[in-house]
């Protein structure tokens, strides 16, 4: 937007230009500083700060909503709801946890609420590890190495993720896709670190099993 160049002398223009460059910067520190400033300005009702926060987090939130609902329209609807709630409540954000964690907690609550409304079973958060016989460390392993075979394409993976139970899927998305640590996931989902680890392990096992079923015949049994 070349036309905007002449407005850069204005305070708003300068801030926008700085935020834009900071958004593109690879430095996490700069991003964090920009985000902190944006949060403060958002608390004062600054529209450009809201836009900055939206652009920073829209992919992760939308991706989470999309995988949890399996429907683009519904995912957009849910994304909108998450951001609206987040912006309305931004004044209550005290910085005790990372902003993204705080926002994901909101998103997860809304996603779970939506799934419950639809009558979909979620998962018991207090389920101790290894109690479910179905997940009791099935000692199976495929003969073919998935990575060496290059067998996991995007469509297959998407389908397998959709086939996971909602709870497993959520932990898998938060940990393995979004990169949250178990402590953060426990904070987001209101469960223990042990439960987060357990759910993730089951999710991975199930996912692998689904991918193998999709591609390969009966797997070899481990000792």
């Amino acid at each position: 937007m070349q036309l905007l160049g002449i407005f850069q002398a204005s305070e708003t223009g300068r801030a926008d230009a700085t935020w834009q460059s900071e958004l593109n910067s690879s430095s996490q520190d700069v991003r964090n500083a920009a985000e902190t400033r944006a949060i403060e300005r958002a608390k004062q009702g600054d529209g450009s700060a809201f836009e900055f926060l939206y652009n920073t987090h829209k992919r992760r939130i939308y991706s989470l909503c999309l995988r949890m609902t399996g429907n683009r329209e519904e995912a957009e609807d849910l994304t909108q709801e998450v951001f609206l709630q987040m912006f309305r409540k931004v004044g209550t954000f005290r910085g005790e946890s990372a902003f993204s964690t705080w926002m994901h907690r909101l998103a997860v609550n809304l996603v779970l609420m939506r799934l419950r409304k639809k009558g979909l079973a979620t998962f018991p958060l207090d389920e101790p590890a290894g109690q479910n016989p179905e997940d009791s460390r099935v000692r199976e392993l495929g003969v073919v190495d998935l990575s060496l075979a290059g067998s996991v394409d995007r469509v297959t993976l998407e389908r397998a993720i959709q086939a996971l139970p909602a709870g497993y899927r959520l932990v898998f998305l938060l940990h393995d896709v979004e990169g949250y640590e178990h402590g953060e996931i426990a904070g987001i989902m209101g469960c223990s670190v042990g439960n987060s680890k357990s759910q993730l392990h089951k999710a991975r096992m199930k996912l692998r099993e689904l991918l193998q079923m999709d591609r390969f015949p009966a797997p070899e049994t481990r000792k």
Partner: protein
Amino acid sequence: MNCEEFEVAWQEVEENKPLPTYLEMHRQTCPLCSQWVADLDHIRRQARRWLLLDQPSEQLWGQIRNQLQQDGVIKTPRMRTGWFSEIPLLAGFPRWSMGMAYAAVFLLAFGVVSLHNFFTNVPSPPHPAPPAMVSAEVLNQANSTLSGDQAFHQLMEKIPAENRPIYETSLQQVNNSIYQLNQFLAAHPEDLFTREQLFTVYEQKHRLWETLVQWEEF
């Protein structure tokens, strides 16, 4: 260590950290566990690679912003007002500075066009292009050909001394207008009329520059 023990211990290992020696030894000696780890790692990498590519439609932010504005969460910038805003006749006082800027723009435009015609005998274009259309070009040229006002002053030095003051005054006026309009825009970024005025002023500055260049060519 058997495979089951390996699997239990492996769950506790944080991502991106090396496996403890005893796990690493088992992994190296057990092809099944080695493959198991490779599979899970591959799934994770592929998921991270593909699943964050999606993004919501372009319209979504517009919808969110509209809703936030309706709710009063996004606050539109307020005009700076003072005691005079309480008096109906003076309520528009904050815009007086804008009025002055507009007047300056028109006077300046008139002055520059007259100068242009007087010295070059070239009639000014009867229908100038819309400001929004030409502004990018003007801005480009202004950015590329002028480095600040230094270039202006360098050219002015080549003009006969008796004609120089009028150019200096014009340049000062155009710079004042740009400053005032920018100030106003900082407080009222949504004011499209001001933006158009700003484009016009930049055009005038560009025309002033052209006139100076023609002087040099003479």
